[in-house]
């Protein structure tokens, strides 16, 4: 099983030079640590910044400069600040090319549920519904199963959904899967030491397996 950092590391391989990217809270935030230095990408923070830099040193901490997870941040060279309306104009208008976010459930037709568990406290969807309804490409970082072993890759979501037919790829702790436009999880890679059979048994939704499924490679 992959660690959270390994999930982030694997997702980082999907990043392409020149992309504008929105990273959600949690594992997605870790992806920034694994983007190769030779790629020029720009991270968007939906509270109004293009060009998120590293976390600040103690003396750089500025309460007027935070990310969407309310963490203190810095800005890279060439960054730009703007309002929330402009920020979501960017997102909704399809200018942010890649969105990486967490999920509680994904269905085989690409629906995602990640904002609400009925009966439990509701915190709100924040920017997630806008992001999933708008981004060109959406990659989900998630655990393949719940704590009691139930698959989270489903035929259809059981939780209130965040967006429909929007997820393009999933990197779970067990596998990398593409969500096909016609429906179905196409298995692309296995986590080291995880068999295709195990993935099959832990995927409730339609799993598509074609040919040999390689193990993920964390070499480079």
């Amino acid at each position, binding site marked *: 099983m992959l660690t959270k950092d390994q999930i982030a590391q694997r997702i980082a391989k999907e990043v392409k030079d020149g992309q504008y990217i929105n990273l959600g809270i949690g594992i997605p935030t870790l992806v920034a640590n694994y983007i190769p230095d030779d790629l020029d990408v720009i991270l968007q*923070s*939906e*509270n*109004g*910044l293009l060009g998120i830099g*590293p*976390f*600040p*040193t*103690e003396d750089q*901490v*500025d*309460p*007027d*400069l*935070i*990310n969407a*997870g*309310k*963490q*203190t*941040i810095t800005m890279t060279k060439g960054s730009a*600040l*703007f*309002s*929330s*309306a402009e*920020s*979501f*104009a960017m*997102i*909704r208008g399809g200018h942010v090319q890649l969105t990486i976010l967490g999920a509680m459930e994904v269905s085989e037709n690409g*629906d995602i549920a990640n904002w609400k568990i009925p009966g439990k*406290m*509701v*915190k*709100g*969807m*924040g*920017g*997630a*519904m*806008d992001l999933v*309804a*708008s981004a060109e490409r959406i990659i989900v970082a998630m655990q393949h199963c719940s704590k009691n072993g139930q698959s989270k890759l489903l035929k259809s979501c059981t939780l*209130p*959904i*965040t*967006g*429909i037919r929007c997820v393009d790829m999933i990197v779970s702790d067990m596998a990398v899967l593409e969500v096909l436009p016609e429906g179905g999880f196409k298995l692309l890679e296995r986590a080291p030491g995880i068999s295709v059979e195990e993935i099959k048994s832990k995927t409730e939704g339609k799993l598509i397996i074609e040919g040999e499924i390689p193990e993920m490679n964390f070499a480079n």
Partner: protein
Amino acid sequence: MINKTVKNAQEAVQDVFSNAVLMFGGFGLSGIPENSIQALLAMNINGLTCISNNAGVDDFGIGLMLQKRMVKKMISSYVGENAEFERQLLSGELEVELIPQGTLAERVRAGGAGIPAFFTPAGVGTEVAEGKELREFDDKLYLLERWLKADFAFVKAWKGDTAGNLIYKGTARNFNPMMAAAGKITIAEVEELVPAGELDPNQIHTPGIYVQRIFQGKNYEKRIEQRTVRK
């Protein structure tokens, strides 16, 4: 140039009334109108509808207005980190309307810009879409969303001039510019108030036309929710 300066927060908020609709700029605790919130807390009003991306924390920001039971309804996108909020919500004392963050930003922008309704893809197929018109444009589905306006909008800027022009700093800008435009009465508090003519007209984020009252704020705490530093 029209002078919109008032003495302080107390004078600025004095005519806010019970059951009014209020907007508050800020994202988390960043860029919130701290002085105006303090002044409102000293008033004997309630039944307020508060439009704000977040609801503060238990002991700071709008959270303090919740503690004082001044708020009837919150319209927000994310309301975590607030135990009293949770208690009031579960007990039915507080109404809550949760809105996708981009839809919230755009509905407020629409309120200021005289756009009564617009279509957006956020929330299609989700419970947010319930009761809303769904329409297809160029092979994609969208929801019709309405504008939001307020009786009073409270915004916080970095610099401002006596004509009401505002400049924000960093990500403390967030919802402030749209809310400034969507308030019938917009009250701006600034860290530095200067005479009209001292700010570069080319760098104004909120033109003074949107601001009815402005005052020099004081004692900013600027609390940080998630202080995160490099190792």
